[in-house]
């Protein structure tokens, strides 16, 4: 029936109202085995891409997941949709645990949560017309029973993403990058989902085109009451589009907050560094601001540091506690911080009040052996970086 209802707002046909919890992720882990062996593969270690994440997404909101490459944000996005089977943990979607679903049951449920990909070219099958691409999901979920309703709906989908109906007969390679991303969005919408996970939806697009797609996503949310999980490395984009933001570092959330507050009152040292590193197109701001230059690169997720994952690069690190105990997300009592603002740092209050001074992080002394031969985990070498440039 929903084939004939066109692009009605998602919450009209659902039970829930805006504001209530739609997705509840708890203790989610995704570990990839590192395999070795000539004839028989044996597991010699694990890359902890996602290592214990709890988060909730409310109906109708946009949750932004931000972090640098290798922090596990994309894997988390896919794990929530069970496109990457989680190693542990649960993902309650409207009361159903997606993480434990398998096979046909999972496939049927998929019409309620969709994904938009980073590279609009590689995520569209080059051999299918746009019409075939849009029809496929509807067919898989039995939404294409009425031929004339399907015909109407295809046109509605195209106009919803700002493409002419004549585009239905064309192939993806005949469109520009921005238009392809619109097709990807239309495909996600074709099955009438509640939740859309957008993995770097604009980072492959030209600057002037990015804004078109961002506005389109926002318009569609407004019109259809969609819930978004936007995964991106661009903090400015995430802040613009999101209601709440989670900052990821090395497989875990280090801070979670309402979008505006995250910029005004960043509590985690990593968030501060990330924020200070984003260039702003304004020379006055660029000249006057204080940068927190991090030393070193991301440690290997196959062999993460003990205690706080960030302690090896943290300019506010304190002796022993940071090295030994992994901090949990908690609400802190800091001026300007609301109860929804959580941070995983032992010293967040002290840092915010200025009681702990920022200090130089010495480059780690690396012994010859760790550089001479590959480590057992087979991970790429990740070197500590130099001291911050004055």
């Amino acid at each position: 029936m929903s084939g004939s209802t066109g692009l009605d707002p998602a919450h009209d046909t659902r039970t829930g109202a805006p504001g209530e919890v739609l997705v509840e992720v708890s203790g989610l882990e995704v570990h990839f085995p590192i395999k070795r062996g000539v004839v028989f593969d044996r597991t010699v270690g694990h890359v902890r891409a996602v290592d214990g994440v709890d988060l909730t997404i409310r109906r109708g909101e946009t949750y932004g997941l931000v972090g640098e490459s290798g922090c596990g944000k994309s894997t988390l996005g896919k794990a929530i949709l069970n496109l990457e089977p989680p190693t542990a943990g649960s993902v309650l979607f409207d009361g159903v645990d997606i993480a434990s679903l398998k096979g046909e049951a999972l496939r049927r449920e998929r019409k309620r949560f969709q994904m938009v990909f980073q590279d609009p070219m590689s995520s569209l099958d080059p051999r299918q017309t746009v019409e075939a691409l849009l029809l496929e999901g509807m067919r898989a979920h039995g939404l294409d029973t009425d031929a004339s309703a399907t015909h109407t709906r295809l046109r509605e989908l195209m106009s919803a993403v700002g493409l002419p109906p004549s585009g239905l007969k064309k192939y993806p390679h005949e469109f520009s990058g921005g238009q392809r991303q619109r097709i990807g969005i239309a495909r996600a919408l074709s099955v009438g989902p509640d939740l859309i996970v957008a993995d770097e939806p604009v980072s492959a697009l030209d600057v002037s085109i990015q804004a078109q797609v961002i506005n389109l996503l926002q318009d569609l949310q407004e019109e259809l009451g969609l819930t978004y999980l936007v995964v991106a490395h661009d903090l400015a984009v995430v802040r613009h589009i999101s209601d709440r933001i989670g900052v990821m570092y090395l497989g875990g959330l280090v801070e979670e907050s309402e979008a505006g507050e995250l910029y005004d009152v960043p509590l985690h040292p990593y968030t501060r560094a990330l924020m200070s590193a984003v260039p702003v197109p304004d020379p006055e701001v660029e000249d006057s601001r204080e940068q927190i230059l991090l030393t070193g690169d991301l440690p290997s997720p196959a062999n993460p540091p003990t205690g706080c994952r960030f302690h090896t690069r943290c300019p506010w690190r304190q002796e022993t506690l940071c090295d030994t105990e992994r901090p949990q997300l908690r609400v802190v009592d800091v001026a300007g911080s609301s109860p929804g603002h959580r941070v995983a740092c032992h010293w967040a209050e002290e840092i915010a009040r200025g009681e702990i001074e920022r200090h130089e992080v010495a480059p780690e002394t690396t012994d010859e052996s760790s550089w001479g031969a590959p480590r057992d985990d087979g991970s790429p070498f990740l070197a500590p970086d130099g001291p911050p440039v004055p």
Partner: protein
Amino acid sequence: MSTPMSTHAVHPVHSSEPLLSVRDLRVTFGRRGEQPFKAVDGISFDVRPGQTVGLVGESGCGKSVTSLAIMGLLPTRGNTVEGSAVFDGEDLLRLSPGQMRDRRGREIAMIFQDPLSSLNPVVQIGRQVTEVMERHQGLSRKEAMPKAAELLERVGIPDPKARLVNYPHQLSGGMRQRALIAMALACKPRLLIADEPTTALDVTIQAQILALLKELVVETGTALVMITHDLGVVAGLCDEVNVLYGGRIVERGDRHTLFSRPRHPYTVGLLNSIPRLDAPRGEALSPIPGSVADNLPWDSACAFAPRCPNALDVCVQQTPEWEGDDVVGLRCFNPMGVSR
């Protein structure tokens, strides 16, 4: 129509003679059986010693082709390069490939976007750095090695002596880019061309590399041509900014003027279409409509006219001429008022 905004232009570095003077550079790609494509359509700019000049634009605007043409790195088959690029009294575009090879690495060096593919994967970092010195300065490898270690230390690679024997894959992305910068600096070049040097890097690593570049320019007096699509990178780094569209420069100014009073509708459009981290939230973005596929040919119109909110009839009938000089300038019939 519009007068150059020379009133508020204070340029301490512009007193000296240009080190590189590019005039009316044109690059045409002519593939067999296809329409010739003008990738660069008459670009002129100057770079003075110690100055950082930015070339900004989106993909297809000709910014990378410009740098490759100056470096003599474009494949010769099917391409025509016209105009001149005078470096230190010599037109680089007229040099023989051998003469050009001699300039590259010694006087002019280049840093590319992808540090992994720019490094030879089977040669140790130390060898790759010393190779440049052996070639251009006639040093033996024994003499060059300590210097290579110094260079690696200079660009912020910790424990440089140990790192000399590493292969590129053993370094992280940020480290590789540092190693590439070390190679570029090995012969103390007078001109450094950086083509999207931080695009492949994470934002915290980008901040490190930009800080390093900024510092090197001040310290060594090297002239830097920075090619990027990121207006934020330009705002913090470049003395002079050139905005490119469809193979031509459409606006030029020192960074303070250009960002506070952008005049070309394309520059304004770019600035309004990116979300700013420090802007109040909830402000909608104003995208530039259409895409580069809508461009008109510069021969008879303004290429940007079909996407331009300020377009007049004249914009699709005549080519807007460059009004200005080598310091500030604009190519537009109907520029934006002082806005933003």
